[in-house]
């Protein structure tokens, strides 16, 4: 059991190591069982987008295989493959990655869910608490995977947007309702002020929802007391969505840093608030694609206001 956990941990570590290495667009470390059967051990395939990283792994080969062997307590075949950025950004590769990463999560989230629903039998309080943690972490992991895939697609210029007419007011209301349980739990006031003229928007509904979701989840994450206010108004053919919180805020000179992927501003903070810092950079890039903008005003320890503008772009008739 211990060893299995360790081996999973190591594999995940390898995955992260490869994934987080600078200059990677969408790398992967994949574990495969050799066709001869379980006894044949594991096959670890390391795919990198940088030839020098591949070379580095190859130079470590013997020591690396040995340590993998030890952790897995079984022979492991390690192979390396270099893929250039183009191939990594191939939509088929991204689709496969997305599928491969989500399949095990389907089991984790699904079975945790049915256990928590009590479909299998009654749970005691401790079991419930622990399973809720599993569920929260699995959902967190799912969100991270989606974020990493999104940023990869955007950076590779492979993100396809769709356009449709939808009700922005309803979309904002829906997101606000989604966050109500969380903000109530934290004792925060959550208010929505949507101007009467806010109505239809011709844009990518899913991506606009993602932007709103990211802004609200950041506000909820970094606010421990006070309130979060979401407002929406129109101005010069644009909708302005503003999310204001009374959270920890950001120092002036660090505002630009907030939009860079994988940068958490303060190391002290990143310890308290874990995450990759991808959400704002995804928002910024999505808004560039949607013809909008994002801006941040903030006062350290007082709060943050994030303002997003999206062109109304009424569908041509």
């Amino acid at each position, binding site marked *: 059991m211990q060893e299995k956990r360790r081996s999973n941990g190591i594999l995940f570590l390898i995955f992260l190591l490869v994934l987080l290495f600078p200059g990677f667009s969408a790398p992967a470390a994949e574990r495969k069982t050799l066709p001869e059967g379980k006894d044949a051990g594991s096959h670890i395939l390391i795919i990198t987008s940088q030839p020098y990283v591949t070379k580095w792994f190859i130079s470590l080969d013997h020591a690396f295989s040995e340590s993998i062997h030890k952790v897995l307590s079984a022979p492991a075949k390690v192979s390396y493959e270099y893929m250039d950025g183009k191939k990594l950004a191939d*939509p088929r590769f*991204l*689709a496969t990655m*997305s*599928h491969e990463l*989500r*399949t095990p*999560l*389907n*089991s*984790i*989230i*699904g*079975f945790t*869910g*049915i256990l928590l*629903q009590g*479909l299998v039998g009654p749970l005691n309080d401790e079991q419930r608490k622990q399973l809720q943690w599993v569920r929260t972490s*699995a959902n967190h992991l*799912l969100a991270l995977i*989606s974020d990493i895939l999104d940023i990869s697609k955007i950076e590779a210029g492979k*993100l*396809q*947007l*769709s356009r449709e007419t939808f009700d922005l007011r309803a979309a904002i209301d829906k997101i606000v309702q989604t966050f109500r349980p969380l903000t109530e739990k934290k004792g925060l006031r959550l208010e929505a002020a949507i101007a009467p003229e806010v109505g239809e928007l011709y844009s990518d509904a899913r991506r606009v929802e993602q932007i709103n979701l990211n802004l609200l989840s950041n506000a909820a994450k970094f606010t421990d007391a006070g309130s979060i206010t979401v407002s929406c108004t129109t101005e010069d053919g644009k909708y302005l969505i503003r999310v204001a919180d009374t959270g920890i805020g950001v120092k002036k000179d660090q505002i630009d840093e907030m939009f860079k992927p994988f940068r958490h501003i303060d190391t002290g903070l990143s310890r308290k608030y874990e995450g990759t810092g991808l959400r704002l950079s995804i928002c910024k890039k999505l808004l560039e694609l949607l013809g909008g903008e994002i801006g941040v005003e903030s006062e350290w320890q007082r709060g943050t206001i994030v303002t997003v503008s999206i062109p109304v772009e009424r569908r041509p008739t």
Partner: protein
Amino acid sequence: MKGRILVIEDNEQNLYLVKFILENNGYEVCEARDGREGIEMAEKIKPDLILLDIQLPVMDGYAVARTLRTKPDLAKVPIVAVTSYAMAGDREKAIAAGCNGYIEKPINPDIFMQQVEQQLCLRADGGEGK
């Protein structure tokens, strides 16, 4: 028994999960592990709804949906794609292949039945679904 649902899914755990939820909610579940078996099974049992994985051995889900839509006696059976191919355009591809609905994996057990029953209701109302 509320109805009969055919689940076409090759992943053992995913199949178990979906079957478990459906059976606990009073549905009869039939299963198929690949595309061709799915089509044969659909013709044999005439299910009330089909849950269709997209990445399948032998014949993928899109091809299964297209084939099922050519069969007059199955034309009205709602097909819901259940897939982790959550890339842009996947939903549209599934709908274009003849699916009526699309559920993204990982499924959320809290709302899964609602998503499935919505499709069953559309059928009962004689609606075409979306």
